[in-house]
């Protein structure tokens, strides 16, 4: 896997193991109304990653997922999922993919359990003899066993979301596509989803997760991509993305003036003094030297850290501060 850059996505290896789970080339979708929703997308999701798919409202995340799942035909470009072309190979690919797209959709007049039975029977690769056990296990996994007999129309938003997740987890999957999975969940629910995602990832399932909750992405994702107005802005390991928005060197000291002088000498740019803290852009040289220089100059250092930029900083830096949805 290794590094994946935005402009030059890694060519999938020939071995099945390191072939990307999702690979799109110049994927483009223009809806019938003329709306260009996804524009020349080159996305590469490495196998085994937990991949965060970010972007402001209307940036084309759901549209991309629909193309990956074979629900809509790309206007141009190609999409490969699990090594096979979509939407042509849906029958072979989708039994290995669990998906939650744009929130759950349920049959209100059926019980939670019967909803799952229905979705399970729609999968030709699912053995009807083990259906009951599969459904029970999926219900248990999302904590709905007690409410399984209740009609789905009587479910709360979070319960519906959980049931949708259960449907995605009916089978052991190689890829899980989750479009805003924590929508409507209570804090416990969100934590459980994170735990679940980590569990699945450690079992080798690749998880493709779209979300607006950046700290959530930061907590669970190994990789991320950022979309804006249908275009891919960047993709790569999460650590690199937030590093892209450069962390800041922060020195806590009562001798701020002296510290600022020394730091400038040491090549720290954009030095800012606030109360008892001096911050700046970290220099290229070894931080040990900076520390030594501070100490030699008699600066009483209480703490010296490089504060990692949050993914949120990176996201805002990439997509802009503006609140309005792009037309």
């Amino acid at each position, binding site marked *: 896997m290794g590094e994946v850059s935005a402009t030059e996505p890694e060519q999938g290896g020939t071995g099945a193991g390191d072939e990307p789970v999702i690979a799109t080339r110049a994927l483009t979708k223009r809806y019938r109304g003329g709306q260009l929703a996804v524009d020349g997308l080159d996305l590469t999701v490495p196998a085994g990653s937990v991949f965060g798919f970010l972007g402001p409202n209307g940036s084309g995340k759901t549209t991309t997922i629909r193309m990956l799942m074979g629900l809509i035909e790309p206007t141009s470009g190609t999409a490969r999922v699990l090594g096979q072309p979509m939407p042509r190979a849906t*029958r072979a690919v989708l039994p290995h993919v669990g998906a939650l797209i744009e929130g759950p959709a349920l*049959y209100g007049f059926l019980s939670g359990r019967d909803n799952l039975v229905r979705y399970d029977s729609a999968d030709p690769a699912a053995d009807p003899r083990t259906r009951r056990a599969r459904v029970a296990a999926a219900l248990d996994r999302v904590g709905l066993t007690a409410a399984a007999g209740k009609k789905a129309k009587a479910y709360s938003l979070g319960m519906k979301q959980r049931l949708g997740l259960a449907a995605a987890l009916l089978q052991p999957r190689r890829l899980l596509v989750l479009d805003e999975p924590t929508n409507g969940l209570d804090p416990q629910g969100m934590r459980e989803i994170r735990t679940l995602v980590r569990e699945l990832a450690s079992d080798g399932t690749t998880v493709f997760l779209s979300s607006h909750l950046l700290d959530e992405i930061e907590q669970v994702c190994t990789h991320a991509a950022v979309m804006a107005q249908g275009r891919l802005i960047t993709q790569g390991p999460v650590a690199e993305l937030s590093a892209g928005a450069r962390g800041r060197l922060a020195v806590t000291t009562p001798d701020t003036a002296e510290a600022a002088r020394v730091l400038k000498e040491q090549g720290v740019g954009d030095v800012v003094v606030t109360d008892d803290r001096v911050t700046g852009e970290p220099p290229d040289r070894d931080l040990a030297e900076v520390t030594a220089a501070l100490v030699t100059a008699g600066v009483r250092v209480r703490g010296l850290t490089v504060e990692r930029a949050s993914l949120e900083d990176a996201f805002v830096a990439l997509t802009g501060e503006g609140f309005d949805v792009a037309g």
Partner: protein
Amino acid sequence: MSRADPSAPQGRGELREEPQTARTRRTTFRASLLGNELLTTFRRWRTLALLAVLAAVPVLVGIAVKVETGDGSSAGPGGGGGGPAFLSQITNNGLFLVFTALAATVPFFLPMAVGVVAGDALAGEANSGTLRYLLVAPAGRGRLLLTKYATVVVFCVTATLVVAVSALTVGALLFPLGDLTTISGTRIGFAEGLGRALLIALAVAASLIGVAALGLFVSTLTGSGIAAMATTVGLLITVQILDQIPQLHALQPYLFSHYWLSFADLMREPVYWDDLTKNVELQALYAAVFGSAAWARFTTKDITA
């Protein structure tokens, strides 16, 4: 694996480790989606309400005839004259209520019920968003469409039988049963009469196949279940009206409702097959045309709901 799955080009071995029994297993799977679809359809409150309305028609007709003839006179003008509605014969033989009830429901109630179920089949799933989950399950678009059509056809048969069985029950409760006179004036035994009633029910069910295909096609066009149901029922009414306009008689043999009352010919001795055959042919034509149109539309459609 692409050998077992022709729709999966360039299949990679690692994707599907299916045993050799795949083919036989897959047939059970198909049946199983159909089974689930039937269960889901017939558990719907709306389906049950439609069937209840259909079951009520013979009850109303039966009671009306009973009340009308409570003084001992026979119903209808001319008495015993026959005619496609068989109304006048009911008092002599409850079995005729089956024929009357089918004749009363075939122009509107039965096709309307079929139109509602067929129109909602895919549009309703699109409306509720469940369609996308069926498709990523993956149900397969062709497989899902066939399942839906099969279910609508089962509903056609069920709806017709509900009318027939309800009529037979009411007829047996309110009127005497026994030998009966055909339209041609010959007499046949009660057992053969029952057989004819069953044949008539099947002929009526077959009459509905065209509406079913039309409704399913409309259902692929829209993402709103209500719109699809309304369009189908609207088309049904329009066609019925067109079939009544004398100036359009050149067109009328191609309207799906044109031979709907041909089932009465099963009560002739010998049976007059011409119109019955034409009806079945016409329904098959509608099923082929609108079935193909539905296939073309549904297998290529963008599912965004």
